[in-house]
């Protein structure tokens, strides 16, 4: 990934987002189920219904609706949610921090866990334990986040009720937040009791999201470490009498890091996409949970806004990973 390539990718972002907008817009307009019908009180007159339809712009043709919506979206106005009667932009902005905190926590857990497993796997290379670790990685990779969520829910919510299984924070906890980054804010303001309550709610969904990703990190990193350890420089370091852990950490790890970031980084989007169901399962108030409600309520403006949000996050993450790889890899940096 050279700088020219990154510029090319930047240029491709607007058309990609435009494509996403068009597909979502057209898809939603052929949905059976009328959002207006779901919000009117019984006994509303036909004139009332028409007025509401006109208010949300649903009386126009699909291309017309798209032009109106797209024009407004360019100026930062993503319309009003039909089911929640608020600005889509504000709704998404209010919920997004919850999802970002959850995903960041999950990524931290995954990277930590994956790195430890990868190093253990490489360290026991060639022994029976390696076979067991590879098998374990395979299993964890095959089972997706939402199934882990269900398993964790059964294990630690029901069978051994250790942790709360719904929501982001206890409703009886009396705190007011100035931002929607609850965890970061409570940590910064020193409210450790609040932070621990938030963490207790976050840990199960975060672990569920993290497990498949951790397995992925472990698999890629382990393969890269094995490959790097077979290279001459590692063998020479060995011959000079450095211990194996020292070689793995200081010589092999930096070189194994690049392919891991390149291959694994892209998959963070999978983790982010996984929040949709995992948040649903744990009733966690992020944008994923909101998206499912929006689909169920046929809330067109909100679905559009949410999918666009996810698309922007996906593209931004991919780009960030490419940048990181370019910065990490001296060959590409100077290439």
């Amino acid at each position, binding site marked *: 990934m050279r700088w020219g390539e990154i510029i090319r990718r930047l240029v491709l972002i607007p058309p990609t987002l435009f494509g996403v907008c068009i597909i979502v817009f057209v898809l939603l307009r052929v949905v059976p189920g009328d959002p207006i019908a779901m919000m009117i009180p019984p006994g509303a007159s036909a004139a009332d219904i028409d007025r509401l339809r006109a208010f949300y712009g649903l009386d126009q043709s699909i291309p017309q609706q798209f032009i109106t919506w797209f024009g407004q979206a360019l100026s930062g106005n993503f319309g009003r949610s039909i089911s929640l009667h608020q600005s889509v932009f504000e709704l998404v902005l209010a919920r997004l921090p919850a999802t970002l905190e959850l995903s960041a926590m999950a990524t931290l857990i995954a990277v930590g866990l994956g790195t430890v497993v990868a190093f253990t796997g490489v360290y026991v290379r060639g022994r029976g334990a390696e076979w067991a670790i590879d098998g374990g990685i395979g299993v964890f990779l095959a089972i997706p986040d939402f*199934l882990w969520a269900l398993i964790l829910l*059964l294990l630690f919510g*029901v069978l051994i009720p250790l942790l709360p299984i719904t929501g982001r924070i206890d409703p009886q906890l009396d705190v007011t937040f100035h931002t929607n980054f609850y965890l970061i804010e409570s940590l910064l303001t020193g409210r450790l009791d609040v932070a621990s309550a938030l963490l207790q709610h976050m840990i199960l969904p975060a672990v569920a999201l993290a497990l498949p990703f951790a397995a992925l990190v472990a698999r890629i990193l382990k393969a890269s470490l094995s490959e790097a350890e077979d290279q001459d420089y590692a063998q020479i370091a060995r011959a000079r009498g450095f211990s194996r852990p020292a070689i793995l950490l200081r010589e092999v790890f930096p070189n194994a890091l690049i392919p891991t970031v390149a291959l694994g980084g892209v998959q963070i989007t999978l983790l982010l*996409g996984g929040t949709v169901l995992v948040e649903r399962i744990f009733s966690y108030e992020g944008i994923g949970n909101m998206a499912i409600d929006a*689909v169920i309520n046929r809330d067109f403006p909100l679905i559009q806004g949410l999918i666009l949000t996810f698309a922007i996050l996906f593209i931004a993450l991919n780009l960030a990973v490419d940048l990181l790889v370019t910065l990490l890899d001296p060959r590409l940096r100077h290439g």
Partner: protein
Amino acid sequence: MVDLAVSGPIARPSQWRAGFARGGPRLWIGVGLVGFFVLIALLAPLLAPHDPIEQDLLSAQLPPAWMQGGEVTFPLGTDSLGRCVLSRLMYAARTAIAVALIAASLAAIIGIAFGLIAGMFGGWIDQVVSRLIDVWMAFPPVLLSIVLAAVIGAGLTSVIAAIVVVDWTRFARVVRAETMVQLQRDYASAARALGLSRGQILRLEILPNLVPLIVTLFAVEMGIAILVEVILSFVGISVAGDVATWGGMIVEGRQVIYQAPWIMAFPIGCVILSVIGFNLLGDGLRAALDPVQRR
């Protein structure tokens, strides 16, 4: 020389055996698990102790037979409507395997077609297909499948369509890249030198070499299809209530998770085992069919 262009690798029995040996335990366990579920799916009407939709409200939420209060006639207990969990699991296996087969086949056909065309012809055709894949990849797959299923409405068709529309890119991306790699190989140049048309090269030369890859992807895709059904059940847009599906059973069980956790646990177990089975099968097949790619 002419033979060179048309003769493909012919699998002899000894090669099959060698392939199975290369696949190792992954292949065996995968074949075993998938075979187990396929067998259950085929034989569900013979094996199931009860009619899967037969309700017995007097014996609702019975625990499995080995737990206190369980009955032998309901080996894995009953759900909230008093339906036999074991029978429903077996019939759900039928739905799962059928959906997985159809959805994976359709996704494969569409994805392979797009991938081959893009890889073979390059130029603006490749640009169009690649941009299309880019746009698709920018969607959260779960959300896209949910929106799609909402578009088409509840039902098995909807589940299958959602899987196909979301996942054709998986085949398209891999097939496109691999076609480009294969086209660079000497045998493709040789075929071109022999005067074979593009269509012939694709059909006779490239496609046979893509088979190991496609078979592997196909097995993995079947596992994914089973998962998508569960996802859609969670949003209530999978199949109608009386058709037994693992996803539907999980969602029903979720509602009584505190009173009867086993109702949810068994279908989760089935989904996990079948998905692991398909993944191991895919991994094993890759190793068995293509010694070059063996890890």
